[in-house]
């Protein structure tokens, strides 16, 4: 599988089809890997793929701007790539998608993954198998049953730990705003003081901004240095987007994200007035 991937990357770079290949390489730490940017064909031998390849490399695509890049994408990452194309952050013709037939990495999302199909990629590395895994919303349903007070107590305890490093935002493929509200000073949405209340405001607004665009890729949760359970939010959002708008982000490259459009009668939402 790695050999196959290296050959593709080497050829793309040698034939100058792309400026960059973005994939994974072994890191200094035994058993770990990390994202790598390559622009020379001879570097392609560095490419690896194994269970430690958790990073969602789609996050780098909006930064490539007018250059061309090939990106290694697992099925789940592919959804983010599609979402970014849909949102015009990169042109489809500027990205070469090297899909990998992934059977799971070291991430909480893999045991319920139904995303390993690689529709629409330029190259497929390995053979896609049906892994027989099923979506499981029981953790979200259980959380939904808690009272507002219990939910609040839970999140207060989580966000008390937040150090507002913004790793969650910066690894998120759909958080590409060059001028994030969290950095604005005039008006100041968010004070620099780090406390539970401000930390919650940050994540609440971020979640609102990524609703219906977030693919529940878990990059934010994986990145959080203090282990905040962000997947409870991202999974709940994907559940709600499906329920309210019958919408699944990153399934295609041309539908409109639900909050960027509106219907006079939203079937999923009950009229209150």
């Amino acid at each position, binding site marked *: 599988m790695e050999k196959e991937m290296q050959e593709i990357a080497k050829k793309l770079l040698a034939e100058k089809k792309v400026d960059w290949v973005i994939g994974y390489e072994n*890191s*200094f*730490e*035994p058993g*770990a*890997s*990390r*994202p*790598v*940017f390559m*622009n020379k064909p001879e570097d392609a031998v560095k490419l690896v793929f194994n269970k430690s390849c958790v*990073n969602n490399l789609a*996050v*780098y695509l909006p930064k490539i701007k007018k250059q061309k890049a090939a990106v290694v994408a697992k099925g789940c990452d592919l959804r983010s790539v599609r979402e970014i194309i849909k949102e015009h952050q990169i042109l489809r013709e500027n990205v070469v998608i090297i899909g990998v037939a992934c059977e799971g990495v070291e991430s909480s999302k893999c045991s319920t993954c139904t995303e390993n199909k690689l529709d629409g990629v330029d190259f497929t590395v390995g053979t896609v198998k049906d892994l027989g895994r099923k979506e499981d919303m029981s953790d979200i349903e259980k959380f939904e049953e808690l009272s507002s007070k219990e939910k609040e107590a839970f999140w207060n305890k989580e966000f008390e*730990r937040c*150090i*507002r*490093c*913004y*790793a969650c*935002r*910066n*690894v998120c493929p759909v958080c590409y705003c060059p001028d994030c509200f969290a*950095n604005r000073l005039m008006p100041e949405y968010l*004070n*620099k*003081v*780090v*406390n539970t209340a401000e930390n919650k405001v940050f994540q609440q607004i971020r979640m609102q901004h990524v609703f219906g665009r977030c693919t529940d890729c878990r*990059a934010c949760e*994986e*990145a959080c*240095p*203090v*282990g905040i*359970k962000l997947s409870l939010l991202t999974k709940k959002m994907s559940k709600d987007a499906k329920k309210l708008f019958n919408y699944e982000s990153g399934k295609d490259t041309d539908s409109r994200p639900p909050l960027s459009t509106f219907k006079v009668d939203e079937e999923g939402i009950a009229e209150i007035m």
Partner: protein
Amino acid sequence: MANKLITQENLKALVNELAASYDVFAPKRENKNTVSFGKLQSFEEYVSGVLLTNTTAKDKVYLQSEQLFQYELKKDTVEFKEKAPGKEAVIFGGRPCDARGFDVIDKLFNWSGYEDGPYTGGRKNTTIITVSCEKPETTCFCTSFAGGSPADGKGSDILLTPVSGKFLAELLTERGEKLAAKYSKYFSEAGDAETAAKAEFAKAAEAKITKKLDLAAVKKNLDASFDSPYWDTVHLPCVKCGACTYVCPTCYCFDITEKKFGYLNGERNRTWDSCMSEMFTKMAGGHNPRTDTKRRFRQRFMHKFRYHVDNFKEELCTGCGRCIRRCPVGIDIRKVVEEAK
């Protein structure tokens, strides 16, 4: 300074007694994967087996958000309120690289005859009881630094090292001696055998550290590489969050901002800031001299292994490896500075 001995049971009793009268911060489990310095109610909560807490002990003295003062507009005056000094605290169960971090930033916060009030105030109020590391992690590289070791006492008031089923307690400062004197019932005298055992312990632990940087070579290369094309590509995987700087025991940069209440009343706060953030060098009026992500990335390594060495004759790093562990994209400071050319 004196060496004492303390048994496991006595250590437990000591910590419990300390927790009754001080704020005792020690590695404490937050959830399955997270252990940070939290306030101990009792010894039971202390997680002894973790070397690398997710965040550092630094934030117990140098607060991430510190209120400097509040101001309130009165009829014809402005009233200032300063924060009352905090309770006396003990940081227990940190590691030599955590304690050394304090020693490094102590010099910064007392530089050129200027004493930083909030920091030194907290520092004077805090006793640091450190535990030597038996099995360093693969990310540890404390032995790269002058005197750095998994059993080094720099920055600690008391250093505990496991020897023959007990702990050797080295009382390294006046503060450490005072605390041991106050709780002398828990300590006994240590002999030469235990001191020798500690030296053995240190040797064995040091031998387990796999990576040692040649700091003289690193400095030489960084001195010459500011404009090198090396920086054009090495930064690309970095997403420029602040995780590495906010979990670091030696990063000290801060910002000062106002928070207002009502029309004219407010407070002035000091909050950590990070050279990785685009806001870090943004000035009033919008100009940003550190224009791009490459320059921000370069700054972190240049500061730690070049500029700080020029100013303080030591690196702004203790080799704890937290930035390596917590970086979401596996940027490895050892590799970045070693390969700079």
